[in-house]
């Protein structure tokens, strides 16, 4: 596990895009989703997959001892904070990043214990207060400037890359509600189209427009914000006949060299991320032949020229007619694909590969995570070294937190706790992983979980 490098403090906030977004920009229609905020806040536990021996993991809500002990059984050796960084972190409306929380006096003892002077900071994304956090705790951050990271993560930047490469972008930019109306009407004449927020994320910030009435409604919604002083900027793209989503992970070193790390197929449920799985050799060969990787190398060069270095995940797709759309968006940060690649690295020692999936769940009773793990083990579903297949639960709080925050279980009449189960399906073959998922779904149904996806 990466011998010879300084050990790292691994940390990050998975809702990086919300920090990059211009607060004065108009927003697409959105509805409050407190449960999603809780779950996204708890996703930082997934970063254990990027921890090497001797690293430390700083997580917003604290890593439950049962999960830490399970990961230890798997062979992961890292430290982690047990308790939430602050009691305020449990407030779902708290928009503060893990670094902002870590800077508070309340969290200092936990951070100082995990981050003795001289450690590196391995951050999921370059967000505000990362530099201040690193300086405060004497961590070597080696991160690009915040402004550069923010700029290259915009979908507008991704759009302009097509021009730089002499390619035609499938998208167009609109800078006002009126421009959206005009461009939208033209696009609708050909078919449905997507409105994308420059910093929209999977499942949030993209809107499919399939009818003139919907377009008019969104235009009206944006006009009202413009009248209050908001500026408008969106990317419009025709809804393409997509066959496959995939992503390419690479890293740009401090001297500009790029290292390709992995290619992952993305499994989506509508526009929301459902899972990742390593791309098969046939797809890699096809991409190589199509010049995709040469383009990724050029893209890495452009990012470096624009001041970015570090991890990158480029989302791409292949259309039903075989055409490759190489740049759907550039995510200049770590990613779910990278996490899945990390898990595959671990599983390769056992001759297995993994498939990272997330299931959205509803449940009635308070969930005890230790008991949950024990039950999975009793049922023979839990992966442990030496087993030829099994599922690896990746995050405890994303599943359990909602029920643990409620004071009086069971859930109020008629209400279900909401959680998300992130698991890696570890097995030798695609068929074995599919069977594992079917068994897991059956396990959930038999325990009266509602599975939403």
């Amino acid at each position, binding site marked *: 596990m990466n011998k010879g490098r300084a050990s790292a403090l691994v940390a990050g906030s998975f809702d990086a895009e919300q920090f990059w977004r211009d607060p004065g920009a108009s927003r*697409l*229609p*959105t*509805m*409050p*989703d407190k449960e*999603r905020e809780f779950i996204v806040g708890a996703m930082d536990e997934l970063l254990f997959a990027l921890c090497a021996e001797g690293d430390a993991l700083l997580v917003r809500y604290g890593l439950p001892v049962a999960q830490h002990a399970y990961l230890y059984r798997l062979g992961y050796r890292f430290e982690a904070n047990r308790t939430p960084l602050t009691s305020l972190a449990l407030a779902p409306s708290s928009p503060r990043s893990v670094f902002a929380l870590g800077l508070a006096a309340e969290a200092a003892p936990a951070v100082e214990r995990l981050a003795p002077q001289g450690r590196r900071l391995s951050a999921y994304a370059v967000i505000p207060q990362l530099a201040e956090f690193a300086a405060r705790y004497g961590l070597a951050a080696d991160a690009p400037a915040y402004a550069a990271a923010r700029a290259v993560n915009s979908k507008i930047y991704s759009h302009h890359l097509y021009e730089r490469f002499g390619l035609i972008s499938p998208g167009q930019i609109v800078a006002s509600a009126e421009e959206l109306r005009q461009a939208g009407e033209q696009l609708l004449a050909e078919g449905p189209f997507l409105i994308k927020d420059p910093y929209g994320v999977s*499942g*949030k910030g*993209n*809107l*499919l427009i399939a*009818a003139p*009435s*919907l377009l008019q*409604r*969104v235009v009206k*919604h944006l006009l009202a914000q413009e009248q209050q002083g908001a500026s408008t900027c969106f990317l419009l793209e025709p809804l393409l006949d997509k066959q496959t989503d995939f992503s390419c992970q690479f890293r740009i070193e401090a001297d500009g060299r790029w290292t390709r790390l992995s290619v992952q197929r993305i499994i989506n449920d*509508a*526009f*929301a991320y459902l899972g990742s799985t390593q791309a098969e050799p046939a797809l890699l060969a096809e991409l190589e032949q199509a010049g995709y990787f040469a383009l990724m190398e050029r893209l890495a060069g452009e990012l470096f020229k624009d001041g970015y270095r570090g991890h990158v995940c480029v989302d791409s797709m292949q259309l039903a007619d075989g055409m490759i759309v190489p740049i759907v968006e550039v995510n200049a940060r770590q990613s779910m694909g990278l996490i899945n690649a990390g898990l595959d690295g671990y599983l390769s020692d056992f001759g297995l590969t993994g498939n990272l999936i997330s299931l*959205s769940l*509803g449940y009635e009773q308070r969930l005890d995570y230790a008991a949950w793990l024990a039950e999975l083990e009793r049922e023979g579903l839990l992966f442990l070294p030496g087993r030829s297949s099994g599922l690896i639960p990746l995050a405890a709080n994303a599943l359990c937190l909602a029920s643990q925050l409620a004071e009086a279980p069971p859930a109020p009449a*008629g*209400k*279900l706790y*909401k959680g998300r189960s992130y698991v890696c399906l570890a097995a030798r073959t695609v068929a074995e992983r599919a069977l594992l998922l079917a068994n897991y779904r059956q396990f959930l149904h038999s325990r009266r979980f*509602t599975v*939403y*996806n």
Partner: protein
Amino acid sequence: MNETKLVLIEEIKKVLVEVRKNPELTANLSASTDIVNEIGLDSLQMISFILSLEDSFSIEIDFEQFDFDHLSSIGKLGDYIAGRLAEHE
């Protein structure tokens, strides 16, 4: 249940099935179905659902102020929409 309410409920069910892109869902929907807890729309599907309801019933819903209790059953949502339609009559 009066005929107007039945029509509203059928229309809501149709919109839900379209948003979830799952025709098999039709058989599992009734007036008592809890849209939040049983269907589990994510935030994107929720906004698509509300927009589609606006379109289907020619009403306007304030996204930020919308009370999620209206989604605790298809029947309750039908009542809410009936109320909004009555405002326009």
